[in-house]
């Protein structure tokens, strides 16, 4: 009977689309599509010169538009018929993603030491590979792919219904799967990372989707506000609801890299080309945490007594496992991956707080952590020997004697990760822990401080290796180029400024969080 009345509905009205509020995303996607066209029509040698400025200008234009939206219009509005929420947190997160993506793009565009393969289709070790290497080109498709991924990252935390969120998740992930497999050296590792990331990523997004289906069955809609309204009505199947929340959380926690769902992270971070690792470790984490914040604050806020115990457990496990396993690592990228897992745990304590201060603290933490991460991975790309990047920690011995400036900056980034005062890491950690303690999660804060102390141990160990041991005779050298140095300098500046003078940024995050999320 129902279906008959639905089918008889007279006509479909086109939904209103507020183009000016969606413009940052549209600009990024537009630039990506122009990039695809450039791949088709521009001659191969000229492509790099077209693609890099195009991508950079696209991201910068989108960032300017986001700033303008944030400071002039102050929208608190669900655009596109309620599918995309344009509010304070969205704009803050999108702005952060765009800046971090620009920094990562500087690393991606580095030509002095190519990180990307010349021809992804050529077999490793084959003649075709040597030929394409000799031609000196690179696969310029990385630029449009990066832009598509960034566009998806901007949509993911802005989505106001679970379907848009799923589409954003896939638009973000699919290009990243490909980018992971495009390393120039150690190609087998890179391809293996791509396969692992792809299979596990697809697995987790299937969980996300099935959770969405169950919540649709419970609430009759995938709109976050409708789910929240259905919760307060009560009635409906509790089983559908709880199973839906659990499956959806699996999908979100996988992207954050929280502990039962973390094993992909070290493998993928190690195998992927380092500029892409920088992009994933900063922007993807920001996007995923942003989406988790929106889902848990908007849709499931009234259900928090049900999901909080689970999130407590996940946060504690994530902080401890990340910090403890990192101690045993010998590869620098793998160690940073475990450190990123531990930081995911700190971010989860901000989500658990479910308060305005928790939201603003998490937003600040995301920005602070993102800059430090891009800076740290930028330095990883600079330390090189004859086989490419010197990944093994032992090869970093004595770096402080050979190039004190770079080693000093890296040491500073590590101290920021550890959360030493006067770095951005300290301000961020202090803010989330304070919010969590105010929200009654004192045990969580104690575990967080403990895990920070454990983490400080392996960060300091790297510093000791760099400064207090003798360099090997064939130790790697530091290759400095303008673009990478710019990325390092910007990351360093942000880390120092957010540590010494955090107030403006804290105010900005606080302002973005004042009205929480639109519904």
């Amino acid at each position: 009977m129902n279906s008959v009345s639905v089918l008889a509905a007279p006509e479909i009205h086109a939904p209103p689309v507020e183009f000016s509020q969606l413009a940052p995303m549209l600009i990024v996607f537009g630039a990506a599509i122009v990039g695809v066209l450039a791949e088709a029509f521009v001659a191969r040698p000229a492509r790099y010169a077209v693609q890099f400025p195009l991508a950079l200008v696209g991201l910068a234009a989108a960032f300017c538009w986001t700033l303008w939206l944030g400071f002039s219009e102050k929208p608190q509005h669900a655009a596109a018929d309620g599918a995309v929420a344009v509010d304070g947190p969205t704009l803050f997160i999108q702005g952060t993603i765009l800046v971090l993506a620009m920094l990562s793009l500087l690393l991606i565009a580095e030509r002095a030491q190519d990180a990307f393969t010349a021809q992804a289709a050529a077999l490793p070790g084959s003649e075709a590979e040597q030929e394409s290497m000799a031609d000196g080109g690179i696969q310029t498709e990385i630029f449009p792919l990066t832009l598509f991924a960034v566009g998806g990252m901007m949509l993911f935390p802005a989505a106001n219904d679970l379907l848009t969120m799923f589409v954003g998740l896939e638009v973000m992930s699919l290009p990243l799967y490909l980018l992971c497999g495009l390393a120039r050296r150690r190609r087998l590792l890179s391809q293996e990372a791509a396969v692992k990331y792809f299979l596990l990523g697809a697995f987790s997004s299937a969980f996300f989707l099935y959770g969405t289906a169950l919540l649709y069955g419970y609430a009759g809609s995938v709109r976050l506000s409708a789910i929240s309204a259905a919760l307060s009505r009560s009635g409906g199947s509790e089983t559908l609801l709880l199973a839906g929340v659990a499956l959806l959380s699996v999908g979100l926690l996988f992207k954050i890299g929280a502990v039962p769902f973390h094993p992909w992270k070290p493998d993928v971070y190690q195998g992927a080309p380092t500029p892409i690792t920088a992009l994933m470790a900063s922007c993807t984490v920001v996007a995923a945490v942003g989406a988790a914040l929106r889902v848990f604050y908007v849709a499931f806020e009234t259900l928090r007594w049900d999901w909080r115990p689970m999130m407590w457990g996940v946060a504690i496990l994530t902080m401890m496992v990340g910090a403890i396993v990192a101690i045993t690592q010998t590869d620098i990228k793998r160690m940073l991956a475990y450190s990123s897992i531990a930081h995911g745990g700190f971010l989860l304590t901000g989500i658990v707080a479910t308060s305005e201060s928790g939201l603003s603290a998490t937003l600040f933490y995301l920005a602070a952590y993102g800059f430090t991460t891009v800076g740290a991975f930028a330095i990883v790309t600079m330390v090189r020997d004859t086989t490419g990047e010197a990944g093994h920690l032992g090869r970093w011995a004595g770096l402080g004697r050979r190039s004190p400036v770079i080693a000093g900056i890296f040491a500073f980034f590590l101290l920021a990760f550890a959360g030493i005062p006067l770095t951005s890491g300290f301000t961020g950690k202090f803010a989330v822990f304070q919010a969590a303690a105010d929200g009654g999660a004192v045990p969580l804060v104690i575990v967080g401080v403990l895990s920070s102390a454990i983490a400080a141990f392996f960060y300091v160990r790297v510093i000791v290796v760099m400064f207090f041991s003798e360099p090997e005779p064939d130790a790697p050298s530091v290759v400095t180029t303008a673009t990478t140095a710019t990325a390092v300098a910007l990351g360093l500046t942000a880390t120092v400024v957010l540590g010494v003078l955090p107030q403006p940024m804290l105010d900005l995050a606080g302002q973005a969080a004042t009205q929480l999320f639109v519904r």
Partner: protein
Amino acid sequence: MNYVILSAILFTIGALGVLIRRNAIVVFMCVELMLNAANLAFVSFARMSGNLDGQVIAFFVMVVAAAEVVVGLAIIMTIFRSRRSSSVDDANLLKY
């Protein structure tokens, strides 16, 4: 409701398949089975709640799944060409 139960069974078979099977292609097919189980759930919930949202969502999911197949098969094919094997157990260079 029976269709929802069927979709849950399909989803479980898919999830178990991902965990148990060793061939990357089969693992990927199991993921597709999970996505289609979600589609079945969407369509049957749409029927139960009497709005069309679920049916429209199913179309979106099909498009996304198709895009995922393109990317996934490309990646699996690349690793098969360089290793002559598509077993997920053989890909073991990255660990600890």
